[in-house]
């Protein structure tokens, strides 16, 4: 039997497909696919939904301007159930389908697990929320990048903010979950709070023993009684999400929030004020990945806010929207340098990259892949408006001095 040219070409293409040989001409014609892995079920799902929305808005903005070298960005959203094993299984499934760029993730545990398998999957992971100090220090992974600030920066900047605004608050208590992020928060506050008061006012701060609690607790009354008995002026809250709401709800009932002069948190954004409404504590500073009210001078931020509101998502885009948006913009900026989608090309392109974002220019530090950017706080209070709360003040702090030296592979050391 003779083989004609048509049969030969068909056979060759089939063989190439079966043997998994790369076919760059075909692959590069399709969209650039980014896997948004985040939590879409349960109490943290509103943050996960914000991730998906932020990434989709960013993709739409890039696509409206012609995409990347003519190629559109496609966002594929998957749930990680806030569990490392589900996050990893989801990444493997998407990688098997040809997706090699991942972004999102709320939990530091999921981020740690995903960072660990990225090299094996030939993929890159852009983390848009997790806060653990370990992720860009002792647990650093080559294919992991973080586009937002982290505990060291957030709590360091928050400590300086407290020293600036509340010079008389010299006795501080703290409550934090017994997990990686919780320990990062307390470790950072233990370093920066005394330093900030010393350098700003020459005053000595007393940091009392932390009340450690389990993640997902429903009863903080013993801890509240201990904090009340400590006679504290200020309170560091390392809890997040529903735990922070429960704690502030119970602390308000027992008068703790009226006793203290200031409260600052690692960051539940608007969530606690939106839940507590008129009972939002006074002098409650909530940490933000991005507080939109602080960026009225940023055209990109204004465009994101407009699109968010036009789509009917609400009036207040939170930092999860902003940082997920930034994750896609980081990828777009790296690809515009001519890098391909593979980890081998994308990782060097992202290292040291400075890209425009809703927070202004963000630099991904070459050594440890940590974003060097602003840190945002907002002073939230109850209000008699439709929301039941309002932001009465905000702080936009340069995070650079609090980022610490890059020490990939080694735990963050405070000097």
């Amino acid at each position: 039997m003779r083989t004609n040219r048509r049969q030969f070409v068909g056979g060759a293409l089939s063989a190439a497909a079966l043997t998994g040989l790369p076919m760059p001409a075909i692959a590069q014609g399709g969209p650039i696919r980014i896997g948004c892995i985040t939590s879409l079920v349960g109490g943290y799902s509103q943050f996960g939904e914000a991730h998906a929305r932020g990434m989709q808005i960013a993709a739409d903005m890039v696509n409206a301007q012609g995409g990347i070298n003519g190629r559109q960005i496609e966002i594929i959203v998957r749930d990680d159930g806030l569990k490392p094993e589900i996050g990893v299984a989801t990444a493997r499934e998407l990688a098997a389908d040809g997706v090699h760029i991942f972004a999102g993730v709320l939990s530091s545990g999921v981020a740690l697990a995903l960072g660990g398998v990225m090299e094996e999957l030939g993929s890159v992971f852009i983390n848009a929320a997790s806060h653990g100090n370990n992720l860009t220090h002792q647990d650093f992974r080559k294919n992991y990048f973080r586009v937002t600030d982290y505990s060291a920066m957030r709590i360091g900047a928050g400590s300086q903010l407290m020293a600036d605004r509340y010079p008389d608050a010299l006795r501080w208590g703290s409550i934090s979950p017994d997990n990686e992020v919780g320990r990062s928060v307390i470790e950072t506050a233990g370093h920066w709070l005394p330093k900030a008061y010393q350098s700003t006012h020459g005053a000595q701060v007393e940091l009392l023993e932390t009340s450690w609690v389990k993640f997902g607790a429903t009863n903080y009354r013993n801890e509240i009684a201990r904090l009340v008995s400590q006679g504290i002026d200020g309170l560091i809250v390392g809890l997040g999400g529903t735990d922070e709401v429960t704690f502030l709800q119970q602390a308000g009932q027992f008068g703790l929030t009226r006793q203290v002069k200031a409260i600052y948190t690692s960051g539940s954004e608007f969530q606690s004020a939106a839940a507590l409404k008129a009972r939002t504590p006074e002098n409650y500073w909530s940490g933000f990945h991005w507080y939109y009210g602080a960026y009225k001078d940023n055209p990109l931020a204004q465009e994101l806010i407009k699109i968010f509101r036009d789509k009917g998502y609400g009036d207040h885009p939170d930092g999860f929207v902003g940082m997920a948006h930034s994750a896609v913009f980081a990828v777009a900026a790296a690809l515009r340098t001519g890098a391909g989608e593979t980890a081998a090309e994308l990782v060097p392109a992202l290292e040291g990259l400075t890209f425009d974002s809703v927070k202004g220019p963000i630099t991904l530090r070459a050594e440890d892949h940590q974003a060097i950017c602003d840190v945002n706080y907002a002073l939230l209070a109850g209000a008699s408006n439709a929301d039941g709360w309002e932001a009465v003040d905000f702080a936009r702090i340069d995070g650079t001095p609090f980022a610490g030296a890059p020490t990939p592979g080694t735990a963050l050391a405070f000097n």
Partner: protein
Amino acid sequence: MTTLYLYAIFNGLVLGAAIFLVAAGLTLAFGIMKIFNFAHGAFFMIGAYVAYAVAGQEASSLPLFLAAAFIAALVVGAIGVVTDLAIFRRLGNVPHEYTLMAAFGIMLFCTGAARIAFGQSVHAIYPPQAIGGFSEIGLPVSHYGLFIIAAGIVTFLALEIGLNRIWFGKLIFAVARDPWMADVVGLRVQRLKLASVAISFALAGLAGGILVANQSLSLDLGHSYLLLAFCAVIVGGLGSIRGAFIASVIFGLAESLNSVMLPTMPGIGSYALLIILVLIRPQGIYPELSQ
């Protein structure tokens, strides 16, 4: 330090009563249907959302707060009847593993349905003013905490007396222990089972309505008490109301005293206690209905 211990004991009793309110329906469901209803936490969460929908963020009066809790009980009880007729009864003659999987599926369905019906925002709910304050008697005693303890005791007594002393309760016992013999002597087994299922689900709704102001309200609420409630049901003796009550108090005290005695290891006390109690008394404190 003594004050902190006394306060921890008071909080332990509050937590114990809260655990029992959730565990009561769970252990009753096991006693009658012979399944571990994994969806119980989801029905508890739905009860809390229903109470919030009725009474708002802060109920204007104690009667409204209580009415909201009873409406939650009715609504969740009705959902329980539908669930039993549509799912659990159909699985009555297949191995228990299938029923467990069905319960897990119902839990996922309920969480998804609650998300669609009530949204995914987190809410802070407050007790009405009548029970919203606290008394300072050397330690701050929350009136709402006392209310939860009272609700737990009243629920326990109602179930204990209702199941052991009242005619209807004895019929339920008869059906739970030997449905074949109950049928032979002329009892309407399916109808009695349905009424029991409605009561066990209504208890989940009632617990949601009573405990809605005890912590934040979110789609995760179902998980918050469920683990400790399962522990109480196992240690108390599967199907035993009395055992669940005692075990709930034990776990509440363990959880609370843990935060004072071992503050750097939160939550470890309950699990250590579970292991010890199961090793010492694997059949549970009062293995009544499971016999």
